[in-house]
């Protein structure tokens, strides 16, 4: 079969990949000697594996496909290669011969593969294609694995190894010259729209076919321009977005609304003007996948919007755990040097202490305001040297502040909701704290301090127990795993000196704390006022 025939027979099913199909077909054709190694590369969802599979099936070349993502270790991969090859060659019963189905090293693999291929019946000495899918994603792969696998084809003449990689290969990454590469580029706008339009528009009850066929092409290209193109979406994404939005888009026609402008018929422009909001709100939410999909049917436009805006019910914790979480939050968000001012019991009731606290809160707030203004000023004219930043005498440097602003992450967000500041009023990101500090702060903020302080001793122990639960819930985490997440989860031990860090948003903690009678802003630097 000629390569053009293969391409034409397949292109109805997978359009816009003619070039690649022809290349593959000519390189892997059973009548032509194949290159020992072939690299197929392209980002995900560009149809690499599907087309490779289809071409191989059409060419009727014996082949085996190993999906690297399903192999846990390098050894697993090698075993699987051997096993799949045996299966493809119908030699499954003879696994005892070939190393008892065990293969621990690439050199061993080459010997075993050679034996298998040599053991084939004499009348069919043709080539054998081994496809290693997503081989660049192999877990626990030794760094020589790729180049070693690329050599297999050189050692065994009848073998052709196809490496499918999803990253763009660096030059000579196989340490081997002149390996043919076939690139699967992402689909262009024209191609993507063509692919979507090659299937019909989703059927909507009550929508005349004629309108559908007239409006759908425009709709698809608008979706591509507004949502898929800018986000580099793949074809399946594109398709699912189109399917999801199409119902809403044509809803005015189906509901029998009268088109504006005295016309009797809806055309694309009118629908678009009517449905601008879809692309803004639903379109964006359509891009984000959620585990629990929104099940609000798209009958009215108002209700789903209101629903998404509402914060879902957050879990409530038991009293004691809430208090611990609050202390952890405060410990994470108060600079340690201000501890004596904010949490010391010796001066907690005196006027001067309160003044001091207010002063510090205000200062930190002024600082953050100044920072916001600076940014504003910097945006306007970058050359002006700022003076406000220098005037504030604090050890919190400008860089920490600006980084705190830049990464207004989930861990820090506004509590007070100050009117003047655009950014979060809690200017510091969560910092790690030692456990003893948490205990001390707990005692400081306890809204119901024990009547007899001598009995307090039990509290520290109870805190540990609750903290373990909070840690299991990842609300408070050891500082090391907060950053790296490298340490294994589960039952790792923590020393007394180890640092911890809070791992939730401030709003929620603030709300929880209010529920048990603790005002977080009162203790927080830059929180209240």
């Amino acid at each position, binding site marked *: 079969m000629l390569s053009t025939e293969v391409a034409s027979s397949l292109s109805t099913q997978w359009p816009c990949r003619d070039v690649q199909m022809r290349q593959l077909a000519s390189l892997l054709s059973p009548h032509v000697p194949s290159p020992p190694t072939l690299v197929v590369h392209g980002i995900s969802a560009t149809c690499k594996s599907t087309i490779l599979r289809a071409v191989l099936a059409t060419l009727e070349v014996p082949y085996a496909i190993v999906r690297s*993502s399903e192999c*846990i270790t390098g050894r697993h991969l090698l075993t699987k290669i051997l096993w799949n090859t045996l299966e493809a060659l119908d030699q499954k019963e003879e*696994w005892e011969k070939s190393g008892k189905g065990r293969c621990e090293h690439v050199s061993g693999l080459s010997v075993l593969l050679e034996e298998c291929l040599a053991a084939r019946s004499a009348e069919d000495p043709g080539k054998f294609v081994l496809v290693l899918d997503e081989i660049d994603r192999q877990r626990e792969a030794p760094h020589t694995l790729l180049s070693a696998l690329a050599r297999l084809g050189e050692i065994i003449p009848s073998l052709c190894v196809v490496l499918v990689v999803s990253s763009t290969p660096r030059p000579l990454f196989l340490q081997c010259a002149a390996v043919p590469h076939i690139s699967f580029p992402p689909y262009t706008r024209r191609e993507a729209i063509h692919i979507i339009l090659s299937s019909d528009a989703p059927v909507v009850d009550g929508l005349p076919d004629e309108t559908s066929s007239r409006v759908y092409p425009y709709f698809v290209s608008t979706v591509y321009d507004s949502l898929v193109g800018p986000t580099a979406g793949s074809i399946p994404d594109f398709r699912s977005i189109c399917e999801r939005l199409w119902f809403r888009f044509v809803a005015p026609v189906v509901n029998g609304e009268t088109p504006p402008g005295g016309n009797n018929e809806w055309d694309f422009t009118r629908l678009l003007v009517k449905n601008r909001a879809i692309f803004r709100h639903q379109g964006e939410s359509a891009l984000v996948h959620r*585990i629990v999909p929104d099940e609000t049917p798209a009958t009215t436009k108002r209700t789903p919007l209101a629903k998404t805006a509402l914060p879902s019910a957050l879990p409530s*914790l038991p009293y004691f*755990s809430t208090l611990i979480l609050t202390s952890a939050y405060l410990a994470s968000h108060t600079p340690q040097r201000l501890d004596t001012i904010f949490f010391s019991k010796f001066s907690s009731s005196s006027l001067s202490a309160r003044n001091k606290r207010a002063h510090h809160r205000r200062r930190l707030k002024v600082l953050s305001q100044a920072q916001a203004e600076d940014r504003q000023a910097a945006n306007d004219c970058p050359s002006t040297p700022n003076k406000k930043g220098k005037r504030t005498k604090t050890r919190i440097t400008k860089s920490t502040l600006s980084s705190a602003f830049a990464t207004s992450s989930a861990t820090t967000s506004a509590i007070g909701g100050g009117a003047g500041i655009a950014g979060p009023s809690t200017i510091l990101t969560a910092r790690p704290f030692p456990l003893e500090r948490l205990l001390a702060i707990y005692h400081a903020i306890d809204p119901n301090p024990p009547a007899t302080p001598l009995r307090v001793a039990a509290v520290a122990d109870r805190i540990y127990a609750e903290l373990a639960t909070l840690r299991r*819930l990842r*609300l408070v985490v050891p500082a090391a795993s907060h950053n790296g997440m490298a340490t294994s*989860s*589960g039952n790792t031990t923590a020393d007394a000196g180890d640092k911890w860090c809070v791992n939730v948003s401030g709003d929620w903690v603030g709300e929880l704390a209010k529920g048990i009678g603790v005002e977080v802003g009162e203790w927080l630097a830059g929180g209240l006022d």
Partner: protein
Amino acid sequence: MDTDGLNDALGLSNDKSQTLGAYIYQPPKHGKSTGERPSKRRKVLSTTSRDKRADRQHFVPLLNGDEKAESVQLRYDTYQELWSKQENKIQDILEDVDSGVLMDVLSFIRSTSPQTCNGCIPTALVTVGSNVSSLSRLLSRLNGQLISTEEGSVVVLESGDAPNLKTTLKNIIRATVTNTDGNDGYQKFLIDRAGPRLLGYDLDLLHDYVQRKGTKKLVLALRDSEAFDPGLLTDLLSLFKSWLDRIPFTVLLGISTSVELFEGRLPRSCVALLQGKHFEVQEAGNCVNRIYETIQADLNTSLWLGRNVTSTLFENTSDYFQSPEAFSRMVKYAYMSHFFANPLAVLLANPDSTVLTQSKLCKAIRNLPSFRMLCEDLIEEGFTKQARDMLEDDEYLIQETPKYLDANQQRMQKMFQAVRVVHACLQYTQSAKKPNVSDLSVRALSGELPESTIVEEMFATAKTLDSDKLDKLLVRLQGIMISPEVDAIQEELSTLLDRCSESGPLRSGYNINSTVTKTTVVQQRIRLSKGQADLSEQAVEYTNIVDRVIALLQVHLTETLINPQNLFLHEAFLFDLRNPLKETFAPRPRFATERALATPFDYLLSSSDITMTGVSAKQPATAVLYQLYLDSGALVNVHDLWQAFYGVFETEEAGGCDDRVVMSLFYGALSELKAFGVIKNSRKKTDHLAKSAWMGL
């Protein structure tokens, strides 16, 4: 330093008698292999069989060791009997609570497939809140259901089982196979197959298994999803995704916080693999309230938890993460301690008088405060003879005691019945915050309920109820109170309602609508006066009925809501000791460690007779150093510490003090403190130690 002192300090001369104040706990070794999934049924069986062997030793004779053996055995048997009854009730409640969610999850698992989820892994998100244990209950029942219908099985995975991908997969495969075939089945499964032996983490194994069994749904449940490492979870799920066409996975994620928080922490690529539905399990609080109500207010109850115990129990539930199981364990402990330590508990077994004929037991009964109260009452009422007999005649006492016990137990039962009456009434009278049975019980147990504002308000509102609500209330009361009076009133009311069914609900004369405010001008002042509006005939009749209901309730409540502390023998059927319960369930390791270090002779026997306060060389070196450490600031110079340490030994052992020995003690102590984690090297100053723990926090 003389040898004695030295040996003492080094702990060389420690013979066992000196350290009797402290015990070392050595946990028994379990023969069970670690990997084997404990099957619940078998576990229960094995423990009970072991219990039977060791029955005899469980309880010790009380009353200074003079208690009869039968009586000891009776106490134990009664405990077993009472608790097993209660436990069954609790179990029923727990199953009942979950059944709704169970059905939902089951139907979700049955109805979904990757095709219905846009090619994603079908995922059930179960939020459990603080009710952490409910999930495992749910899962085991789910497992049973799926296995019995041969649809598949549930594999439970905990974060501890998942240190890395390889082990996790191995655990999943092993758990899946052992779940249905047992451990031997797993071994057989590994060996007994055509082809080469696969690696333990190869999902081909699972694929094989699924094909052999014809599994339609393989549910993988992550019990504490938050605790899993997000990277590992992503790896695992992407692996499942790629196998989804061969193995029918369904993922069940147990979430303790909220779906948003959980989702927010996962990488987008991982979220994109999942799609499913969200289920919520009931909060622990409701469940616990139901358990408490069943335990206490049931008509067959013969032992009650007192006010202190109740408030401790509910404090724990509201303040800490606590599962209903933990709650029932605490109740069990309370039952256990009652029967273990109270010789009067034998009375609950309704023994024949031969068992009771023990002079010590009679003595114990006579020593009860409630006995004293009883005698005083008897004398006041003029039954001097009886009082005298009770005091002097053992036989008479033993004859009378069970009667009193029975009567008083009935009064307790009635009291809880009254609590339920109040609770039922409050459902109709109070709109906003409804106190639950446990709140009411605490008040009732302390005898405060009849005079409380809750009840007063209840009566006030009950007067103004319209006929519809009153009708419902009466029907409800009929279920709780067995009294002909209620039936009679109910009948009357229904006949009245039949007569005037068209005029809408009737209102009593106490209702705000039937009072009229009159305005009169007296001496240039406006006076407001309230007066009864003219009531219709039916309304007057209805008002009468309301009055009767109120009167009935008032009489009933004042009769039944007694203070249990005033009942004779309440010590036998009311367990109200706060302390063993509270201490047992709140261990204080840190406090104990600190105390042991700061005042070692609280635990160790001192070699000298004089009780010493403060630092002394007789104490273990670590304790000495710890006390010095307590006096220091946040940073302490090691040399200063050494000097102080040496000083302690120098003053005690005037003269011959070998500073090399002391130095070695010092080093030993220092490294021990380091191991405790109370000191660490300071980064600021090289020759200083930083304090990292403060006492008494």
